[in-house]
């Protein structure tokens, strides 16, 4: 049994499971670094999964489907940005509203399009990449894509002008503004990035399962949120935490097949994960103004 844990199949399963955690977690890092709490990740995943299904179903081309998913994620995130950055409403309330809206909208549209509020028709999946054949784990384009996104995200956040400005508007918007930075524009950009990446995560959910099912995000957006906090609001940390969750889930799948009927086994890896995290990671300090809309005239 234990050699199955370190097998190739196990690794690729772990990566596959980690993707829909890691993409929204990396995206959420951008939103939150800019000072906008984004619990709407869950709703964005769901809406994007649905949009991907519809796009793929109609075009029969998963690439077009994925574009639809990413686009839908962006639009949903933009809505969150309008509500919480431009209109300065409470970011948590806006997030909850979007999550509820996502459940309703997808269910309703699923009924309209597929004649069932719980399941879509089956859609085509993605072909494996032949490139780069020397690294078999990367033959899944989403796995390769996530690795690339992760590296880019890290570099953008810590090495570029945009990253510096994003971090500054999350920590001290008045200071950023006093240096001529347009706070709400930068915050909007952070939220939009979270929409693009969470949208890609949702697209993967639909492509991986070859269909949309009602509520298929299943709390992944919230786990992504936890992961980015555990990862101390850094893309690498967030992705690391997601890998740990993915690994835990993978182990529990393996153990379940070995010990039938012992439901509590499903819990063990999560409990281990929690202890590991509590023991080794320590306190993480959030961006200083997270959750607080920026009011210009207040100093």
């Amino acid at each position, binding site marked *: 049994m234990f050699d199955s844990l370190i097998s190739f199949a196990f690794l690729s399963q772990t990566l596959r499971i980690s993707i829909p955690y890691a993409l929204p977690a990396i995206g959420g890092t951008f939103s939150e670094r800019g000072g906008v709490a984004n619990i709407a990740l869950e709703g964005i995943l769901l809406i994007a999964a649905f949009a991907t299904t519809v796009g793929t179903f109609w075009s029969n081309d998963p690439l077009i489907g994925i574009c639809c998913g990413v686009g839908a994620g962006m639009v949903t995130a933009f809505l969150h940005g309008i509500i919480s950055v431009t209109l300065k409403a409470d970011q948590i309330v806006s997030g909850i509203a979007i999550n509820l809206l996502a459940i309703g909208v997808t269910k309703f549209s699923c009924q309209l399009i597929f004649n069932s509020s719980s399941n879509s028709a089956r859609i085509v999946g993605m072909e494996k990449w032949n490139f780069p054949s020397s690294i078999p784990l990367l033959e899944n384009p989403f796995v390769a894509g996530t690795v690339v996104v992760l590296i880019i995200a890290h*570099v953008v956040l810590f*090495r*570029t*002008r*945009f990253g*510096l*400005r994003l*971090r*500054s508007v999350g*920590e*001290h918007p*008045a*200071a*950023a*503004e*006093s*240096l*001529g*930075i347009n706070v709400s524009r930068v915050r909007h950009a952070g939220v939009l990035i979270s929409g693009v990446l969470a949208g890609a995560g949702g697209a993967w959910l639909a492509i991986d399962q070859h269909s949309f099912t009602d509520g298929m995000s299943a709390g992944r957006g919230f786990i992504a949120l936890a992961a980015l906090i555990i990862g101390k609001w850094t893309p690498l940390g967030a992705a690391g935490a997601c890998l740990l969750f993915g690994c835990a889930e993978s182990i529990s799948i393996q153990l379940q097949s070995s010990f039938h009927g012992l439901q509590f086994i499903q819990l063990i890896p999560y409990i281990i994960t929690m202890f590991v995290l509590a023991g080794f990671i320590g306190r993480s300090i959030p961006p*200083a103004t997270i959750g607080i809309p920026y009011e210009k*005239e207040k*100093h």
Partner: protein
Amino acid sequence: MMFSINMQHISKRFGNLRANDGVNFSVQQGEIHALVGENGAGKSTLMNILYGIHQPDEGSILLNENLVKLETPARAISFGIGMVHQHFMLIPSLTVTENIILGNELTSMLGFINSSEAERTIEQLSDRYRLPVNPRARVESLSVGQQQRVELLKLLYRNAEILILDEPTPVLTPQEVEELFHTLNNFKSMGKTVILITHKLSEVMAISNSVTVMRRGKVVTRVDTVSTSQIELARLMVGHDVEFRTVKTSPPSSMPVLVVEGVSAQSDRHLPAVRNLSLSIAGGEILGIAAIEGNGQSELIQVITGLRKPTAGKVVIKGQEYLSSRHHPPVSHIPEDRGKQGLVLDFTISENLILGRHQEKNFSGLFRLFNEKVESNAKQLIQVYDIRPPTKHLRVRNLSGGNQQKVIIARELSKNAPVIVANHPTRGLDIWAIEFVHSSLLRERTNGKAILLVSSDLEELLKLSDRIAVMYEGEIVTIVEAKNTTERELGIYMTGAVKRGA
């Protein structure tokens, strides 16, 4: 380039309040101009308008005779205007370099920041203007004086020709003030224009070429510094003659009332903040504590007032030990932050006047407050402490800073506790409110209370204290008689450079 500023008939309202009311303000190129006035006179508002943060409701701004519109700070920066705000605008978690270049980043293609180049530029600037600072350090690890250098470098990095400094000195030690003034004179000799906001008139006399005095949103006068005096400026600022009556009488009795023995405590971040500290204060004595922010004085106060558990040592008040006990120590506490620690801003005056005392048998039974008692308590204290307006049901948020402080003082002193702890009791108050606080403390001293006073205003410490303890990194470096020391001497001890006696 010739820069001269001319702001004409500037008005700015916040709701019903006229923060600036038809203000004319002008500065010549290459001079150091002081802008003075009491708290709330409208100085910061005027400068925020010049820096593009606020838009004036009326009036116009001319730079070098040219009419300009300063809609944003970015626009003001492009005209060579730079401002160091009263509360520093630095991002603690970022490095010095990141803070300086923010908004003006040197980037390669694709937006990558060229940090080595930026660091080099910053090092050159800090050499040239003698503002030493490590460009790679995180701002949160810097002292206040160093942070101020970062703020100045921010302006220089943007080639500012007009530098506005909003009350830069209260947070500095006397040595740091001297250095700052040296730097400002340096700027002047290089042809830059400096606007210095302050309400310390001795500073105005020491460094400025000309002065504008503001009172209640209006400019009272603009004069050359050589043709005026501190007394005249004080009169103009306040609007009538100023006379200080506060005088100390009677030496302290010798009985120690408050004894702190070997106390150690940690900060919120679990770092050692107070190290094995002992002190004692007699009845009728004021012990001042001088220290630069963050040297354990706040934690010490929290231990004495029972708000923080020490890791070692004990606090004894009138012979009884109070340490991690469930009883609140009998201490009147005038806290550092009025709005956050001293008051519930959205409660009324009468409610605030019984905060923390609401469980006394006078004020409440098992299930209810005795409203009549609460009200009569308020009525009496409002009268005794002259709280204005004398409206019991007014929310404290609507009071001026001075009257908010009176509410706290009224509540705390009417407890009649043997020990009084006052932490920055006059911060942000105007001259009259300061006078009130000072005379209240001195009256309690006469009444035989043991008083611990923490203040960053060394003048205040010297005036009120019998002895002054200087704290550095959680320890008392020295204790001196107030009448035998000077601001300068205290400043030297505060930096931890020397130890004396102790």
